[in-house]
C-alpha cells in the first residue's frame, strides 16, 4: 500500500457487493474526512444501508477496499473488535437490548469490550445519558421508553466506546414525526462537536442544515455528490433532480 495522505477518516475505494445475483453496490468510491458530516440520500434499495454495514464489517465486501482510521477492513489481521471500537452505529429500529436497563445497555460494551470496571463504565454511561438528556431514565427499561427516548439511549450506547466515526442508519425513520426533533437535536450537537458522521437518511432537513457533504445514491452507484447547497439547489444529474422533486 502506497503512502496515502491520512486525511480521510473513512474511505471506500472501488467497493463492490452482491447478495446472490443482485448487485447492491457497484464500484463505490467515497471519502469522509475527520469532522465531516456525510449524508447519504437516495431511493429505497439504492444500497445506502449496505454501505454503512460495509464500514464496520457487518457485511463483507466482495471487492475493493474500505479503510477506517487507517485500518483496512479486508485485512484479515485486523480484528472485528478493533474495527468496531472505532465505529459506532445507530440503527433505524434502535435495537436496544430489551432485557437490560438503559444504563446497562450503555455500560455493556465498555465493560466487555474495553474492559472498564463497573464503576468506570457506569460513570461514563451516566455522563452520556445526561448528554442525550436521559440521565433520570438510567434505570428504565426500553419497553418503558418512547421511541425517541430509546433512540437517544441507542446513541449514547454507540458513543460509549468513544468511536472515531458514528454511523446513522435512518435513525429517525421509525419515529413519529413529532418525535424526530429530539433525536435530530442530539445529532446536531454531535455534528457541532466535530464528530465524524455518516448518515443515511430520508429526512432532508438534516443534510441541508447540518451536512457538510451530501451523496446521492441510486441503484448501487453514487450518482452525484457535493456540498449540500450544490446538490439540493443545483442538482446536475437527471436522476438527482427526479428524486429531489419527489421528496422535497
Amino acid at each position, binding site marked *: 500500500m502506497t503512502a496515502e495522505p491520512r486525511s480521510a477518516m473513512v474511505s471506500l475505494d472501488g467497493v463492490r457487493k452482491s447478495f446472490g445475483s443482485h448487485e447492491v453496490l457497484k464500484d463505490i468510491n467515497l471519502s469522509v474526512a475527520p469532522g465531516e458530516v456525510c449524508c447519504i440520500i437516495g431511493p429505497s434499495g439504492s444500497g445506502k444501508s449496505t454501505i454503512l454495514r460495509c464500514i*464496520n464489517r*457487518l457485511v463483507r465486501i466482495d471487492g475493493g477496499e474500505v479503510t477506517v482510521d487507517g485500518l483496512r477492513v479486508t485485512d484479515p489481521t485486523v480484528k472485528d473488535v478493533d474495527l468496531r471500537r472505532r465505529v459506532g452505529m445507530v*440503527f433505524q429500529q434502535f435495537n436496544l*437490548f430489551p*432485557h437490560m436497563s438503559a444504563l446497562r445497555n450503555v455500560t*455493556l*460494551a465498555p465493560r466487555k*469490550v474495553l474492559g472498564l470496571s463497573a464503576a468506570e463504565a457506569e460513570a461514563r454511561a451516566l455522563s452520556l445519558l445526561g448528554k442525550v438528556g436521559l440521565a433520570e431514565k438510567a434505570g428504565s*427499561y426500553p419497553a418503558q421508553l418512547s421511541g425517541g427516548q430509546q433512540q437517544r439511549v441507542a446513541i449514547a450506547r*454507540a458513543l460509549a466506546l468513544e468511536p472515531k466515526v458514528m454511523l446513522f442508519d435512518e435513525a429517525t425513520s421509525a419515529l413519529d414525526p413529532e418525535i424526530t426533533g429530539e433525536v435530530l437535536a442530539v445529532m446536531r450537537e454531535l455534528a457541532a462537536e466535530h464528530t465524524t458522521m455518516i448518515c443515511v437518511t430520508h429526512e432532508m432537513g438534516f443534510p441541508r442544515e447540518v451536512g457538510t457533504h451530501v451523496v446521492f445514491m441510486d441503484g448501487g452507484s453514487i450518482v452525484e455528490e457535493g456540498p449540500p447547497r450544490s446538490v439540493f439547489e443545483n442538482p446536475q444529474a437527471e436522476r438527482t433532480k427526479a428524486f429531489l422533486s419527489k421528496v422535497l
Partner: protein
Amino acid sequence: MLAAARLDFSIVREAAPALAHGALVTAEITAAGLAGSLLVGIGGAALRTSKSRAARTAAAAFTEFFRNTPPLVHIFFAYFALPAIGINVPGIVAATTALILYQGAIAIEIIRAGLEAVPAGQLEAADALGLGGLDRFRSVVVPQALRISLPALGNNLISLFKNTSLVSAIGVLDITGVAQDVIAQRLSSAELYLTIGAFYLLSVFAFSAVLRFVESRLARYAT
C-alpha cells in the same frame, strides 16, 4: 348414585402416608428431570446452532430420535436392556435418566426456536458494539431466548410432571406406583385413581398459575 355407593374412600385414608411418600418421589423425579432436561436442552441447542456440521447433525439425530419415540419404551430400555451391556442402575435412576433425555430432546427444539426468534437487529447491535461471540450469546441472545421460550418450557415441565407416572411401570414407587401397589392388595381402584388424579390436576393448576405469573412479570422486558 349407584356408582358412587361403591366408592369407599377409607382405602385412600389408610393409604395416605404411603401416597404422601409417593408424592414426594414424584416431586423428586420432577425436580431432577427439570434440571437435567434444561441442561440437555441448553447444551443440545448450542450444538444445534454450532458452526460445526458434525455437532449440528449429531444433535439433530439425538433430538429427532428421542422426540419421535415413546418415553415409556426409553424407560424400559434403560431398565431392562442396559444391564446387558453392564450398566446396572436402580430403577428410579434409569427411569429418571430416560425422562431427562426425552424431555431434554423436546427442550432442545424449544430453546433452539427461542434462540432463532431473537430478532436479527439484536445480533447486529451486539456485533456493532464489538461484542465477541460468547459475550453476544450470553448477554444478549440467551436472556431473550429464554424469555421467549418460557411458555413452551413451562408446558414441557408440566408434561414431564405427568410423565413421571410412567416410572411406575418398572416398579418405582412414585404416587402412581404406590396407588398401583395399594390396588393390587385391595382390588378397589376407582377411589385411588380419582385421588391421585386430583393430586396431579391440582399440581398442574398450581404450576400453570405460577407460570402465568412469571410470564406476566417478564413482559416488561419485552419491547
